[in-house]
């Protein structure tokens, strides 16, 4: 296999890992944000919940920024097209995302009840909406998106943003992602809080996990009947990364199951998803928070892996110009760019993991409401 094709594959794999990491870590913080108003019934409890993720939310949010940056660098055409095609949705996501850092930093810095209650609503919105859109985006790309390219590579949009939001399958995917995030947020709260937050978080984590199982099953049924995309002629994986040429694509009912039919071992991914979700719910019931946290990782691997296996090699298929569908072969950066990014990632990702773990280690232990109130540094 040519080096360029290999680089494209590696980056597609890294993209998957990034999406999983993003779902897990950012989802966890967003879940705490969504649950904030429900697990904390007074100001002290809410501050406790916030301070559990307080030292880490910023670092976690960088996974999200990094997700954008990595797509920009490694899949510039995908970045350029998807962000513009989903304009209104992306702007909504952006608005809810930029409210979060401000909410964290500002909420507890003034004493007014109205001030704090308003920021608590901001936490709910900025926890729920980004995760909903995150899931919904997967729903949209599975269904295909309406766009085509002009001769010089400018994209043109062929369908309205409403079709990307008001659509049962897309809403289902959005809720699926929210329920996993609520689950993970609940588990994080369980790990580092005491009653009454602990028991409330446990209830919500359990509900989140159960809902995820149901939605995953329904989603699977949808996908199996959906008009998926398939390559009608083999492509050259090492082709120049240009969606205008070299690809022939058809849209067929059940097309997303072709990869599963060709490689039955891929069925392990949805099985992993279901198994992890079941384990998650059981672990929460048994009050094994640490097991539950790691089992949340399995849930994300299972779900994102299932989608990735169904879509390979497509990244964002086009319904109006299927031949111009973006795939991992035609929307990556140059071989040189991919190599550079790979080297940089190989150096820095281990360093990041080291200091992130050290940070968790330093801030370990249960967060107590009484301590928060007397610590002027806390959120």
């Amino acid at each position, binding site marked *: 296999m040519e080096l360029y094709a290999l680089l494209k594959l590696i980056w597609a794999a890294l993209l998957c890992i990034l999406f999983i990491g993003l779902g897990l870590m950012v989802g966890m913080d967003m879940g705490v944000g969504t649950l904030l108003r429900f697990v904390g019934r*007074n100001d002290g409890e809410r501050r406790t919940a916030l301070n559990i993720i307080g030292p880490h939310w910023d670092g976690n949010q*960088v996974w999200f*920024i990094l997700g954008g940056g990595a797509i920009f660098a490694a899949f*510039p055409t995908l970045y*350029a097209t998807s962000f513009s095609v989903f304009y209104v949705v992306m*702007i909504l996501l952006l608005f809810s995302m930029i409210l979060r850092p401000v909410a964290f930093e500002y909420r507890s810095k003034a004493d007014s*009840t109205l001030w704090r*209650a308003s920021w*608590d609503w901001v936490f709910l919105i900025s926890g729920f909406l980004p995760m909903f859109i995150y899931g919904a985006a997967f729903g949209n790309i599975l269904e295909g998106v309406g766009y085509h390219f002009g001769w010089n590579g400018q994209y043109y949009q062929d369908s309205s943003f409403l079709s990307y939001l008001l659509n049962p399958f897309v809403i289902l995917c959005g809720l699926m992602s929210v329920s996993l995030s609520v689950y993970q947020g609940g588990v994080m709260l369980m790990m580092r809080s005491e009653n009454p937050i602990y028991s409330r978080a446990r209830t919500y984590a359990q509900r989140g996990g159960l809902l995820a199982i149901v939605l995953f099953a329904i989603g699977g049924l949808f996908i199996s009947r959906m008009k998926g995309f398939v390559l009608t002629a083999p492509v050259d994986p090492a082709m120049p990364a240009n969606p205008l040429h070299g690809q022939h694509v058809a849209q067929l009912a059940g097309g997303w199951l072709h990869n599963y039919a060709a490689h039955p071992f891929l069925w392990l991914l949805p099985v992993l998803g279901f198994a992890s979700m079941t384990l998650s719910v059981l672990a929460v019931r048994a009050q094994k928070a640490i097991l539950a946290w790691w089992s949340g990782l399995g849930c994300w691997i299972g779900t994102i892996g299932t989608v990735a296996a169904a879509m390979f090699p497509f990244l964002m298929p086009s319904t109006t110009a299927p031949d111009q569908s973006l795939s991992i072969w035609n929307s990556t950066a140059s071989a040189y760019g991919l190599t550079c990014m790979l080297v940089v990632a190989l150096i820095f990702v281990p360093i990041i993991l080291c200091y992130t773990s050290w940070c968790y280690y330093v801030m370990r232990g249960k967060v107590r409401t009484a301590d928060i109130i007397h610590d*002027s540094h806390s959120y």
Partner: protein
Amino acid sequence: MDLINPTVVDLSRFQFALTALYHFMFVPLTLGLTFMLAAMETVYVVTGRKIYKEMAQFWGKLFGINFAIGVATGITMEFEFGTNWSMYSRFFGDMFGTPLAIEGLMAFFMESTFVGLMFFGWDRLSKQAHLAVTYLVALGSNLSALWILIANASMNVPEGAHFDPDTMRMQFDSFVHVVFNPDAQSKFVHTSVAGYVSAALFVMGISAFYILRGQHKQFAARSFRMAALFGIISTVAVITLGDVLGRMDYEKQPTKIAAIEGLWHTSKPPYEPWILAALPDDAKQENHFEIGVPFVLTPLITHDFNTPITGLHELEDAAGPRIQSGIEAVSALRRYGETHQQADLDVFQAHEADMGFGFLATRHAPGQDVTTLSAEALPQVIEATKPDILPNVFVTFWAFRLMVFLALYFFALFAISSYVSLKNRLERNRLLLRLCLWSIPLPILATEFGWITAEAGRQPWTVFNRLPTFLSASTHSVSYMLFSLAGFAVLYSIFIAAELYLMFKFARLGPEAHDTPQTAPDHLHLGGAASTPAAAH
């Protein structure tokens, strides 16, 4: 092919300028305050005097208020390249995305992870470990600026990349060229140190406020002294690097330097004056009046006395042949894209260097398509395109001048403040203290003017001489643009109101109040389930 709507392009530009300028109100303070905090904490660790820890903590709190919005509005910038500048991102993403991604991996991660420890780790880390964390936050935020400016420099001086006709985009081919791009180097140091100036004046101004009120004397005197010294050296560095950047533009972006200096005609060394004030008229292409200092311009820009600097008229005339050649490049590129014939590729490669000028002409061609241009229409299109190669002279000229005048003012202010502080005569110089207090927003203003100079001066290009701005925007409808613009206006107004409220609140409270633990007021008592309306669940 759908036509490009100029209104959408203008709205995209307006939105980008608005969000970038807004983001850049908070970034300079972050860049500088982190190192100031590190300096204060260093003194604490070295001398063991508690007052320096209080200083680091108090200014750290103000830093935190500022930092949150800096992070939040930075996310916007990352989104906007994709949401509003699709063609640009696709055309230049291979090159531009890499520094952005490295910024995330190398700098932003470090900054964001350690900022949590910096705020929360005072009691959990040893003195030395906490100091190291503070330095890492400072280094992280400045490295972040480094990579962003490397990316920005690659738009201004696109080195280390070539155009690839098979993928219809610029492809990255030299990491070292991109990182050590001379424009990136001087831009980074200029911007980072401008941040130091902003932070120094911020700390100095608020300390002056305490001294004026006779509050927190020990605390304020020390903060003032450190800030004044921090500021004076930084201001010198900013001015030096500004000079370096000017020379860089003279070599690589002649249109920018001519616009900055309001130079309509090629200069006559050595007596060509440096214009202090003028009223450039972009429509008539002349200055309405000029006040200048003779013999200054040539040595200022070229560092010698006899090299002429090309004027805007001359640059415009020289663009004619490049536009014609560019139109041939674009036509050949399109043919090659459809047929993949070697003959077309050869034609393209002969004219490749001028391709950007061909794209620039699209706006004036019938149907916005230069590839089907008739021979009769060609001269007319070239004439219409020529003035397009010039940036807006009025804006560039004045943004630059205001920035320079402010920098000179800061130099004087920091010099006098340092002297008075070293002589311990601050309390007797109330006018100086008031001046310091009221000057707090000025460095922010100066950095904004700096951004305007650099980016307005780069027009009409997003990628200098390669991709015009009006071709770079996404093909949205006007209603989409208005939706996002309205959203930004509302959100950003709320942000600035909240930020100013908290800044004033904590600055007024001062360091002592910060040290006593925050107690919840009565209506927020612990466990009072019915006390907050939000408990209704």
